[in-house]
């Protein structure tokens, strides 16, 4: 906690935009974590008598064609969308940092090989990679996660590598090598800790993009499978009665949009608070 | 001999702070005066005050006077100052790149000064520039004229800046640490160049440095500065022969003498305080080896000595 305060993350909350976006994200996180206990209705139980009810009491966001509470499903969807995106991005970030750090530190042929492969994934559109993976592994949350992870791998690898290459020239690295430190010590105690801040910020922004990718795949029926509620899948099922019950599609769509905007605003606030704009340039 | 520059009880404020006060000296025609002190002692601020550049950093003169060739500059409006700067007063900075435009040929950057201040036309200015570069012992001036700053070494860039400072035939040069970033051989060449110019052109110069050996080599008079104020002034001979202020003594003691069996180098413990932390009484007292109780309480007056004066309670005492 001390390290967090010292790193300046707290400062991101000091501007109005940072406070609002950060606050929204925190609330969303709480909802996602506690969804099974706090949703007003059960998300899977159908109540056909109440299907396609307009927003009002007690269904604040209305109900869908099976009479399920939209608000509850949006809340539960946060759990699916956020966890899918965050897990995938977290995984991608760890692999990307390891690859980037090793490439940047050891250089040479290894670096060239890693960067060629990584740049190859970079040159394909995300959605194309996702579709290819779905074609191989089949639809479902695991292929969604895998697709998101692969789609962002290049960004994390490149950013980490650039940081490491720059940091390697600092005198304190040479001084530490001169004390007899192993590459593992240099990487884990000096290079990675100094390189991690911008990677985390980019990772956080990527979670926003991951949510969109997850929603897109879900929308095409390639992501979360029914009856698991996810924002994309909800919108997908909502298209059938777009005119009959527009709320079924509007509310999840709205939440996706607001969430992505909030993540981007908070990302900007973080960049400013941590003073790392310069380090993000050119990657 | 006539006085070209007279600074009296100069006082500078930046916002609510007063980083500079009680700076006085006078410079005669043909003389070189050294302003010396550790970094943060107020040398550059003094130079900026003389050049009318304080507004750039949000500062202003709040007391005293700066008289250049008989006229007071403290009340000079900016347009008139612009004529003076680069015209009758030339400035040489420590980092040549603060004076040079990286995207323009060095020759044309010198031309501009002559055209602006002397009203020369293009070809006259160019001829003059090439002549000036030759006078500054720059080899092949006609081809150097067409180069860009990044194609030149540090010492050569500094010569170009000197040429810019000289382009309008000034009466006074202000050189703010002109050799600090240079190698010793280059420093020696630049110092020789400046000394020759002073002699041959009858110029006067304020030479700012933190190095007492540069003062000993190149100056006629010295003002020693500490924490935003002058602490001792006098002729170079007197100051080195018989330094009266403990700070002056300490500064001289910091320079290794290249002689065998020389006395041990003595640093000055501690660091120069920043504006917000200037001490009460004598500003040097927390670091002073001679300090007594009075030093912390009472700001010492200037006590005159042979060819100078020192602001120390014990400046009159022998030893």
């Amino acid at each position: 906690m001390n390290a967090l305060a010292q790193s300046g993350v707290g400062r991101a909350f000091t501007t109005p935009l940072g406070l609002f976006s950060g606050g929204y994200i925190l609330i969303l996180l709480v909802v996602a974590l506690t969804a099974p206990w706090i949703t007003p209705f059960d998300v899977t139980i159908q109540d056909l008598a109440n299907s396609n009810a307009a927003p009002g009491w007690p269904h604040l966001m209305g109900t869908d064609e099976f009479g399920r509470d939209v608000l509850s499903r949006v809340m539960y969807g946060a759990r699916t969308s956020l966890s899918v995106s965050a897990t995938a991005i977290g995984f991608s970030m760890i692999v990307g940092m390891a690859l980037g750090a090793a490439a940047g530190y050891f250089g040479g042929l290894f670096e060239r090989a890693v960067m060629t492969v990584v740049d190859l994934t970079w040159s394909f559109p995300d959605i194309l990679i996702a579709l290819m993976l779905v074609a191989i592994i089949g639809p479902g949350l695991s292929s969604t996660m895998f697709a998101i992870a692969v789609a962002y791998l290049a960004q994390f690898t490149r950013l980490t590598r650039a940081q490491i290459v720059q940091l390697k020239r600092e005198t304190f690295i040479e001084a530490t090598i001169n004390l007899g430190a192993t590459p593992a010590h240099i990487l884990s105690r000096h290079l990675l800790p100094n390189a991690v801040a911008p990677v985390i910020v980019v990772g956080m922004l990527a979670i926003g993009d991951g949510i969109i990718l997850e929603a897109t795949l879900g929308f095409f029926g390639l992501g979360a499978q029914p009856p698991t509620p996810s924002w994309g899948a909800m919108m997908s099922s909502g298209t059938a009665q777009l005119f009959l019950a527009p709320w079924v599609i509007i509310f999840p769509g709205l939440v996706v949009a607001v969430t992505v905007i909030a993540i981007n605003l908070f990302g900007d606030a973080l960049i400013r608070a941590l003073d790392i704009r310069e380090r993000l340039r050119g990657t | 001999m006539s006085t070209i520059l007279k600074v009296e009880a100069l006082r500078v404020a930046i916002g609510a702070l007063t980083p500079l006060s009680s700076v006085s000296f006078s410079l005669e025609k043909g003389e070189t005066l050294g302003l010396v002190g550790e970094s943060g002692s107020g040398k550059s601020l003094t130079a900026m005050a003389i050049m009318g550049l304080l507004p750039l950093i949000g500062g202003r003169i709040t007391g005293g006077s700066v008289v250049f060739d008989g006229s007071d500059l403290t009340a000079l409006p900016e347009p008139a100052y612009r004529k003076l700067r680069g015209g009758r007063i030339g400035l040489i900075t420590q980092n040549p790149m603060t004076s040079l435009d990286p995207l323009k040929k060095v020759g044309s950057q010198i031309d501009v000064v002559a055209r602006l201040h002397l009203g020369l036309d293009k070809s006259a200015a160019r001829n003059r520039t090439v002549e000036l570069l030759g006078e500054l012992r720059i080899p092949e001036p006609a081809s150097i004229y067409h180069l860009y700053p990044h194609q030149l070494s540090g010492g050569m860039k500094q010569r170009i800046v000197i040429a810019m400072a000289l382009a309008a035939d000034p009466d006074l040069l202000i050189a703010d640490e002109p050799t600090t970033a240079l190698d010793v051989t280059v420093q020696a060449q630049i110092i020789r160049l400046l000394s020759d110019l002073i002699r041959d052109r009858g110029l006067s110069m304020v030479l700012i440095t933190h190095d007492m050996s540069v003062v000993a080599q190149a100056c006629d008079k010295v003002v020693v500065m500490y924490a935003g104020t002058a602490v001792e002034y006098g002729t170079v001979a007197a100051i080195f022969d018989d330094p009266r202020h403990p700070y002056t003594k300490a500064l001289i003691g910091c320079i290794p003498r290249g002689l065998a069996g020389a006395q041990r180098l003595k640093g000055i413990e501690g660091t120069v305080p920043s504006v917000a932390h200037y001490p009460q009484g004598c500003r040097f007292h927390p670091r002073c080896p001679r300090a007594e109780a009075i030093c912390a309480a009472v700001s010492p007056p200037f006590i005159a000595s042979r060819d100078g004066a020192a602001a120390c309670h014990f400046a009159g005492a022998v030893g």
Partner: protein
Amino acid sequence: MSEFLEVSRLSKRYTSKRGLFGAARSMYAVNDVSFRMTKGRVVGVVGESGCGKSTLARLILRLIEPSSGAVRFDGLDLLKQRPREMRRLRARMQMVFQDPYSAIDPRYTVADAVMEPFQIQGVRLSSAARSDMISGLLTMVGLNPQTASSYPHQLSGGQKQRIGIARALALKPALLVLDEPTASLDVSIQAQIVGLLERLQEEMGLTYLFISHDLALVKYFCDEVLVMYLGRVVEALPNTDAPARHPYTRTLLDSTFQPDPKLRRRIQPLAGEVPSPFDLGPGCAFAARCPRASERCRVETPLLAASGGGHAVACHHPD
């Protein structure tokens, strides 16, 4: 007694391409350098920036691999050491770096920084021993033990350099390479640091390789001096009283000012500038600037030759 450090015919060559299709050009940052050091001595390496001093330091500590040549430290051939053995050996040969501002990880506290050497070398300390060690090391380099919890950005340049020295000495090395440890500091702080280094050398019986561009400082501080020009050692002085025989060393001496106006120099103009190190032809690299250069100097490279009493000069016409 075997030599403590023996450097034989050490060279480091760099190649660079000019533009995309340009021909590869090469230069020797360090060219055929040989010398020996005995335990407990202070050997100075002096030369202008770019002459290869830092490259030589890195080669000696095997922070970079040489293009050719050998380094023996305490009887061990350093270039034959495997990575693990080399890492172990590093505890005994340490370095203080030129730039104190980036020599400490900004995320480390002073305590972390001075304890890191023990962590790296696998020395386990109880927490009581640890805090004793921290305050002992800080006191040794003249810092208040309370600075232990500070971060580097809270310290001055001089304080950071003291931390650099504490880190380098933590493991009680036998050899300390000092690469311009005071070049970025004020003269007053430079004198403090040099005083500290003198004291530590006496107390710990250290052997120093002291690199500087300041001949006056080197003459003051060192027992023996190596003078470098464009990658080569051009003169080796067995003691600081030995009169310089190489014209370049004399130029360096003549460029050094004394803090005494009675010892003003007559600065001789020096022809041209240091030539580009790339693709140097045959002959003496100093020939173009040397007042004594003859036809022979332009075609035949002078080699370092002993001239009695441990003195060696690489010049066809030494003094």
